[in-house]
């Protein structure tokens, strides 16, 4: 029998369910919209998104927030498919971080 992977948590012990929610932040809604549009364009499927999330590893999986996992998975798969390149992504993130460029949408 194969070993249980970190995302496969059905039946495990865990604490009480915390019913408090948070309103989705604008950036989280953008991640959601990004996924829907990439799905419609047949660039990224839900199964690929999930595969990417599962491949983040147990530590990142627990540490990242929900839409952080989505964003990391989507980015990795877009890089894997060469739809975007590591170099352009790195350059763009650095520009945004330094304030040399502001967000487009």
């Amino acid at each position, binding site marked *: 029998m194969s070993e249980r992977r970190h*995302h*496969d*948590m*059905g*039946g*495990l*012990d*865990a604490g*009480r*369910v*915390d*019913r*408090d*929610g*948070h309103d*989705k*932040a604008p*950036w*989280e*809604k*953008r*991640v*959601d*919209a*990004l996924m*829907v*549009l*990439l799905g419609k*364009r047949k*660039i990224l499927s*839900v*199964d690929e998104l*999930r595969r990417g*999330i599962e491949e983040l590893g147990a*530590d*990142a999986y*627990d*540490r*990242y*927030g*929900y*839409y*952080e996992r989505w*964003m*990391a998975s*989507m*980015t*990795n798969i*877009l890089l894997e498919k060469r*739809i*975007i390149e590591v170099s*352009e*992504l790195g350059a*763009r*993130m650095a520009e*945004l*971080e330094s304030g040399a460029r502001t*967000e*487009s*949408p």
Partner: protein
Amino acid sequence: MSDHDHTGEHEHGHGGYDVDPSHHHPPQPDLEDTPFSRHQLMQMAVTGLLIEKGIFSADEIRAQIEHMDTIGPARGAELVARAWVDDGFRTRLVADSKSAAAELGMDIGPIPILVMENTPDTHNLVVCTLCSCYPRFLLGIPPDWYKSRSYRSRAVREPREVLAEFGTEIGPDVTIRVHDSTADMRYLVLPMRPAGTQGIGEEALAKLVTRDALIGVTLPRMT
């Protein structure tokens, strides 16, 4: 993609990016001088690059966000209220939710949704143990608790205890069936019509049907 190192730090909850500055964060030297988290920067960069490559436009992103904002549990509630007042519709909804919803001009989306009907003998509960699959086209974006480790882990093993945490008591003689959603199959609970609602119109009935009742963690009540 490199990550900041802080093995042993597991204080983080699960509900998305934390914007509370008082909440303790492990040191993230690469983030100190920017208001944006690494993942926010990634989102901005990826979105910008994909727009430049002509994969979609900024307007399409905005339109999609607006569209998702309009989808909420009211759609699922409308289906349930119709099922309560129209037995034929109830039968069709349980048999084939896609065509039943289409009768009300509603599109349930590309993924099949099975409608699980509560009866005096059976209570249904929906979870996605592996991730967060959810009938988004009928309920909107899932609540944080639905995506939490505690709900995903425990709903399949101790559903009565989980339901009790939502203030829902299910009698010991009632079977609880837990449905584990997948990317290809989603579930919606069709609750029983509450007692004391005779003579109440369809629209008013729909208001009794909450998101949580459609997931199965609560029961609709006369308010």
